[in-house]
């Protein structure tokens, strides 16, 4: 066998990396109906330079050519883009799965039914307090009710296993069991993420980061050195 015929050992092949990402994160818009105090991307106002619908479709076309398995769409609040659902349909029709993060504002009963009918869409609802008092102090008035309504709509539509994403803070670190109770009630999966001192998160870091001894503090060893999408 010549050198060319001999396959490289796996460990050597992995040094070349993959042909394309497995998934990637796309901040589709910085427009948001909320303005959470810890927002990583300091979202709220739409960036006038954000991609047009046609440009978004072209990105999806490229992801399809690269055979990227799925894209995590966030923002901002991606569902406030009028073309959001059209783009989700476009991606899944082109074999690019979609996982999107939302505060739940547009998850109506009808929309929940349509999402539940797709095999290629996953939904992640953000919730930063297991009570309205703790959540709304960070995410704004009414945001707890909005998130819970979205969860109820998804559960009633039969959307099993959607994600509830919690940024662990000093104020909610004592509510982890209550978050789990909420997730179980809706047949959802609880996903904990760390507070990051980025965007407005840098402004509130001193007040919000979990302190030593709290679940999720930097001393608990919960968080991987590198985060994955």
């Amino acid at each position, binding site marked *: 066998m010549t050198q060319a015929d001999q396959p490289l050992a796996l460990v050597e*092949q992995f040094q070349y990396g*993959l042909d394309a990402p*497995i998934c990637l994160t796309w901040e589709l818009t910085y427009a948001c109906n909320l303005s959470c105090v810890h927002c990583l991307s300091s979202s709220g106002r739409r960036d006038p330079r954000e991609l047009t619908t046609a440009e978004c479709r072209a990105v999806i076309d490229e992801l399809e050519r690269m055979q990227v398995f799925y894209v995590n769409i966030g923002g901002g609040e991606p569902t406030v883009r009028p073309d959001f659902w059209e783009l989700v349909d476009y991606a899944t029709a082109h074999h690019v799965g979609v996982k999107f993060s939302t505060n739940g504002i547009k998850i109506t009963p009808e929309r929940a039914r349509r999402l539940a009918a797709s095999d290629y869409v996953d939904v992640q609802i953000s919730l930063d307090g297991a009570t309205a008092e703790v959540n709304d102090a960070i995410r704004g008035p009414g945001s707890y009710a909005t998130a819970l309504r979205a969860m109820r709509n998804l559960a009633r539509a039969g959307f099993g296993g959607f994600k509830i994403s919690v940024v662990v803070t000093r104020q909610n670190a004592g509510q982890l069991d209550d978050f789990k109770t909420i997730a179980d009630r809706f047949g959802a999966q609880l996903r904990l993420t760390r507070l990051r001192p980025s965007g407005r998160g840098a402004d509130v870091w001193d007040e919000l980061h979990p302190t030593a001894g709290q679940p999720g503090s930097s001393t608990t060893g919960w968080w991987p050195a590198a985060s994955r999408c």
Partner: protein
Amino acid sequence: MSTDAPPQAGFDLDRPWQLHPQVSVRPERFGALLYHFGTRRLSFLKSPALLTVVRELGDAPSAREACRRAGLTEAELPAYAAALQTLARSQMIQAREEP
């Protein structure tokens, strides 16, 4: 081979199998990546021959025939059966019901 899970007896090479309909396959230089949209799990196919087997499964009357089409020898079959068993356990492939 597909994963590091221990081989397990019992993969039925003589029945028809198929890729799960919710699984996407992306060829890579080492073999392929499989992503299951239902379970949201990823698997590595760590040889190009295993990718050929997986691609042939849906058309072949049996997994054994898919392996033959991929050019595998008798001696290689047990290792490939173990890899297929691992893929079956993680629902990447499934038994195909013949009409």
